[in-house]
């Protein structure tokens, strides 16, 4: 059997996490290749809708990365993120999709290594969860 290779979406905010991802790349840190990075202006622009759409279309895991609390370019953008993402993850659980398929973390522009670590861990976690059951569901 082929090893399961999860398909992962990582929303990274432009000001910190995307720069962190960039740094990880420049430093040639080794990372699993399963992650599709989507650059957004702020982690607060990751509305739960996007996560729901992705998950209901079969994405195996969604990472939301933003600046550390206090460092958001828009001051309190990530406060919003910090509240709405856990709620969205729990809601997925309520309808039977493992909430661990969504993870929120903070990665600054200087934390290339943290980016590497978060991505690697998350890919491992999602591998353990197996494929998103929504892949098999046709509405």
């Amino acid at each position, binding site marked *: 059997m082929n090893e399961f290779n999860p398909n992962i979406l990582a929303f990274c905010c432009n000001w910190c996490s995307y720069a962190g991802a960039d740094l990880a790349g420049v430093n040639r840190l080794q990372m699993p290749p399963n992650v599709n990075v989507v650059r957004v202006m702020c982690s607060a622009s990751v509305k739960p809708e996007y996560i729901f759409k992705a998950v209901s279309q079969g994405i195996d895991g969604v990472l939301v990365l933003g600046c550390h609390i206090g460092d958001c370019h*828009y001051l309190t953008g990530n406060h*919003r993120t910090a509240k709405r993402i856990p709620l969205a993850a729990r809601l997925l*659980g309520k309808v039977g999709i493992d909430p661990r398929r969504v993870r929120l973390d903070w990665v600054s522009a200087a934390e290339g290594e943290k980016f590497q670590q978060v991505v690697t861990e998350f890919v491992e976690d999602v591998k353990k969860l197996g494929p998103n059951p929504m892949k098999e569901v046709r509405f």
Partner: protein
Amino acid sequence: MRLAFEEKGADYLLATRDEHGNVAPVLLKKGDEPGTLRVDVPYQMAMILTKVNKFVKEGKIAVVARRCDERAIAELVKRDLLDQSRLNLIGLACSAEQVKECRCTDPCPSVVDFGECAEPSGDDASVARLLDMSLSDRLGFWIAQFRKCNKCFGCTLNCPVCFCDECLLEDKTFTPEKGIPPGLAFHLIRAIHLADKCVECGECERSCPVDIPLLSLRKMVSQDMKELFDYVSGDSERRSPLLTTLEGDPMEDDANVC
């Protein structure tokens, strides 16, 4: 009813009355012939109020409100969609059957003018049953339910706290323009948008022509709101935690409604 209305010194009365054997909302001015007023069928008065507000710009409105109407009105007032100073609430207590149907834990209005407060219902058995299932069984359950959805928007139109002019659910990014059922994201988006507003009136579940247990889903989200933020919608004092910073201050930006 007439008495309650005049006693409270309002210029209008918003109530429901018998219309050709059905129940419909009616806005009465002082001296209007009231017809047969009825209080036995739940009606979303908060939602009607936002409509009435568009053409009745002055004067006080007395409105017959159950506990959930009262809480829905509180949510709308907090968002500046209604003006509390122009409202007079006439409290209506729900009957024991209605309380049972909604599995309502908070059925008693702050002032009771009609009816008698029934015992609140305990924890919702259907929610407990769903939470007991394994994840895959639960997914199976909801997929089977959501497959029945015919995208009639009944749950949205009748909801007292659904107020956006442009509905995201009509946006083809999230809901396919053609074809039913609309899929899983449709229901999740609705659930999360109402997370900090839903007053568990049960109207969505009653409106749904295909009997999707929408109220159970709402109750699960309310439970999360309670666990994560210790917040219960309908609280007239507290701003929604989704609209405040981690310290509880209002957000810097002006997105303070939804």
